[in-house]
């Protein structure tokens, strides 16, 4: 069976995106696909929210959004009208280490769309009136997000785990910081990030690769790298020296949101694939995984229970996430911590290893079986400095991993005595029981009101 699927993976490898390196220092890859009359164009900037200066959290995202709100020759209203007239979509996505302008358009409208996208990227005007409006929208968006238990817990967990490290900063920023942003600071962030050395153009669809190449070259000429300062990489985050518990206190919760985790691993680290395989066996999405089996299948404590890595240029996070009913939260937390401790101490079994390896190798082709997935893989590879074709190498890498490597890597990687545990729930009902379940001292418990950023 495994042999069949290695062949399956190799078939996909033959469909890898061709990559071109034009004269200007940017990267470009486009996959022609005329099955539907749509073209997807992504302009990824290899710098994201971690470049937000101190006291300016959210500025990269803000600057990206402002690209769509006015150029030297067009107002926001004119841009919106033009995009809708073309049946196009143009959005900005901000990640920790990338800013991505995502475009999609009917292929019949590609020419005017590319012209507009080029203008947006190279001639933004950052009008003051739009800055005021966007501030109000983003502040309200942050407050709206704080009303959602799941996103609030995710935001608070990152901050708790990474403490002051840039990976812990919210991409949208804080209300306090966003309110203080100025046009000068936003324009400075644009000058700092948006230039050809940082450009990655990746797309697919019903267009010629040559068209996209010419457009990318033109765009790069408009934003040559000049005297912009080199953006320093962030430091490597480290775990706090003790196990800690944070309770995000929200009244009247019948259900909790729970994260248990630690600093993660880079995709290019030697132990990445053994850890990836070990995580799959532990909580990587399979119903047969330990965490899902113990928490959901056997006990019905949570609708979902899984563990995953978040990736970055530096190690980001590994975390288990579940959302048990408030009545079951202490028991579910105790069980999760116990399972992590056992994983650290004993690793996974031979049967778990065999099953995980087979599943992952056999399903690896689905990581790149459509043009859209291949585009996303390329964006990830280029923005995280991964080797070209890295995402298509999973089957081969995973097939070479041994049980001993998995368990050795887990032993070295997991730090149960330094776990960061965060639970959104009603503190008055749960604090004592959660403290006990987490196995922490009362002094190591932080209670924060849900209304606090």
């Amino acid at each position, binding site marked *: *069976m495994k042999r069949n699927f290695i062949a399956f993976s190799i078939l996909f490898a033959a469909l890898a995106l061709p990559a071109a390196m034009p004269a200007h220092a940017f990267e470009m890859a486009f996959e022609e696909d005329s*099955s539907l009359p749509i073209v997807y164009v992504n302009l990824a900037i290899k710098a994201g929210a971690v470049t937000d200066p101190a006291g300016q959290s959210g500025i990269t995202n803000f600057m990206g959004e402002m690209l769509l709100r006015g150029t030297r020759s067009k107002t926001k209203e004119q841009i919106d009208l033009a995009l809708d007239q073309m*049946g196009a979509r143009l959005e900005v996505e901000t990640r920790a280490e990338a800013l991505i302008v995502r475009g999609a358009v009917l292929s019949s409208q590609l020419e005017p769309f590319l012209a507009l996208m080029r203008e947006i990227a190279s001639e933004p005007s950052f009008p003051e009136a739009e800055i005021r409006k966007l501030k109000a929208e983003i502040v309200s*968006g942050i407050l709206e997000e704080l009303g959602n238990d799941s996103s609030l817990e995710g935001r608070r967990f990152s901050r708790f785990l990474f403490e002051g490290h840039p990976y812990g900063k919210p991409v949208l920023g804080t209300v306090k910081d966003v309110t203080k942003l100025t046009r000068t600071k936003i324009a400075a962030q644009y000058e700092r990030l948006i230039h050809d050395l940082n450009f990655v153009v990746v797309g697919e669809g019903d267009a010629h690769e040559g068209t996209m190449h010419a457009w990318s070259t033109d765009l790069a000429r408009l934003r040559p790298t000049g005297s912009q300062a080199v953006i320093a990489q962030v430091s490597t985050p480290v775990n706090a020296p003790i196990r800690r518990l944070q309770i995000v206190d929200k009244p*009247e919760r019948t259900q909790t949101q729970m994260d248990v985790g630690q600093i993660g691993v880079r995709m290019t680290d030697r132990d990445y694939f053994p850890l990836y395989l070990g995580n799959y066996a532990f909580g990587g999405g399979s119903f047969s995984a330990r965490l899902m089996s113990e928490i959901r299948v056997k006990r019905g404590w949570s609708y979902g229970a899984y563990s*995953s890595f978040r990736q970055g240029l530096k190690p980001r996070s590994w975390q288990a996430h579940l959302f048990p009913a408030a009545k079951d939260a202490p028991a579910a937390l105790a069980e999760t911590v116990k399972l992590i401790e056992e994983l650290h101490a004993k690793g996974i079994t031979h049967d778990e290893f065999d099953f995980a390896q087979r599943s992952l190798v056999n399903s690896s082709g689905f990581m790149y079986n*459509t043009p859209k997935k291949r585009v996303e893989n390329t964006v990830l590879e280029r923005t995280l400095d991964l080797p070209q074709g890295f995402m298509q190498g999973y089957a081969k890498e995973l097939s070479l991993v041994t049980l001993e490597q998995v368990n050795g890597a887990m032993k070295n990687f997991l730090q149960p005595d330094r776990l960061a545990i965060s639970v959104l729930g009603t503190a008055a009902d749960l604090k004592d029981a959660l403290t006990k379940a987490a196995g922490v001292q009362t002094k190591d418990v932080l209670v924060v009101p849900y209304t606090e950023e």
Partner: protein
Amino acid sequence: MNPKPSAPFIAIMITACLVAAAASSCASGPKTTPSATTSTAGEVVPLVGSAKVHRYTYPNGLKLLVVEDHSSPTFAYQTWFRIGSRDEIPGKTGLAHLFEHMMFKETKNHKEGEFDRILEAVGVEGENAFTNRDYTAYIQELPKNQLDLIASLESDRMVNLLVNEQSFRTELEVVQNERRFRTENNPDGTMYQDLFGLAFEKHPYHWPVIGYQADLDKMSAQNAMDFYKTYYSPNHATIVVVGDVDAGHVHDVIQKYYGGLLASSAPSHDIPVEPTQDAPRRESLKLNIQVEKIVLAYHIPGIADADMPAIDVLQAVLSGGKSSRLYRALVDTGIASSVDSEDIDDKDPTLFIIGVNLQKGRHATQAESVVLREIARLTSELVGDKELERARNKIDFGFYEGLGSAYLKAQFLGKYEALTKNFELGLLEQQRIQSVTPEQIMEVAKKYFMPSNRSVVSAFPKGGKQK
């Protein structure tokens, strides 16, 4: 439902939560013995571009749709049952969805957990299921050489499921946790539940797909088994296969595994017709939120109605893109941080919903006034040609994007088959949208968007002043 943390899962679940759908599940008639061994001959219908749909119908009532797409050595396999919360009765709400969870348990041929484990071992992708008001779908993508395996497993659980009490109790707890996640502890979920409850008084769309807590508390394994015996059979299902397959071979495989299954005679039950709403309805909620929210709904017809293309265009005029009327009037003016609208695809008459998240310090009443003003404009002024073209282009783009993978093509076909028993309606509607006139938009605005047809749910921060 399967909570795997994948993007498709999230998209599917949100759709399942906010969107509706439909299907008349209650095929009646005697038990059918598959006396004939072959189905009707495959019919070929163009889909989009070079893609074609091969359609087969089997003597036991099972339908099969196949689209060959050899761009990747994989295929999507989806089983759509024309059964949803619409088929439930008061006191048993949530049973269709709860039963969907039980479909991943034990059968006569496979112990609990084997279904998932076998598929995961061969590299299944996106194994999942979702229940809606009118349908329940079971979905997977697999490597191309696994067609026999999935047909074997899916045909087995269509008729051989076992429901044991202990397993049922555990899964009931999981579903109650899902309800806490989607509704009780989710402001939007709470508002949507109340909106449907307010707008519908008689029709089953009144209750949430996930059911009421009190009903779930009383549910038994026997209820689940009764539901299964009533509704799960080949004559209530359509199988959709899209990918690197040969249509004739798929037909043979389906015949091999499903051909011997018996049709069932589900008791026909009368779905109550929703009486015409004769006055506006309103509800206010106090929630643990920091900015106000409002959702407004108007009754509109079901998906097959001839007015739907004009309503689709009206929806795009109102909130399709940042040049749309509601975005301009609410977000660009600083009243709202976001606005959206949706004309839901349901079998029976359903709702057109407009949702607004307010900006800090702004009030739901302001947003409501603006929405009503914009709706009044639609009833008194014709939409201009340029604006109509923008709306059509937006819809065109969404249509093509919605067919952008094997999974999405299968979903398009399955949904329209479940709702109308005829996927061509989805293609026809797209054609009709191209010829919608400004006069037709005004006509549907006047017909459906009148005050007496409106229901409104507003949410305010607890402890804040309501204006």
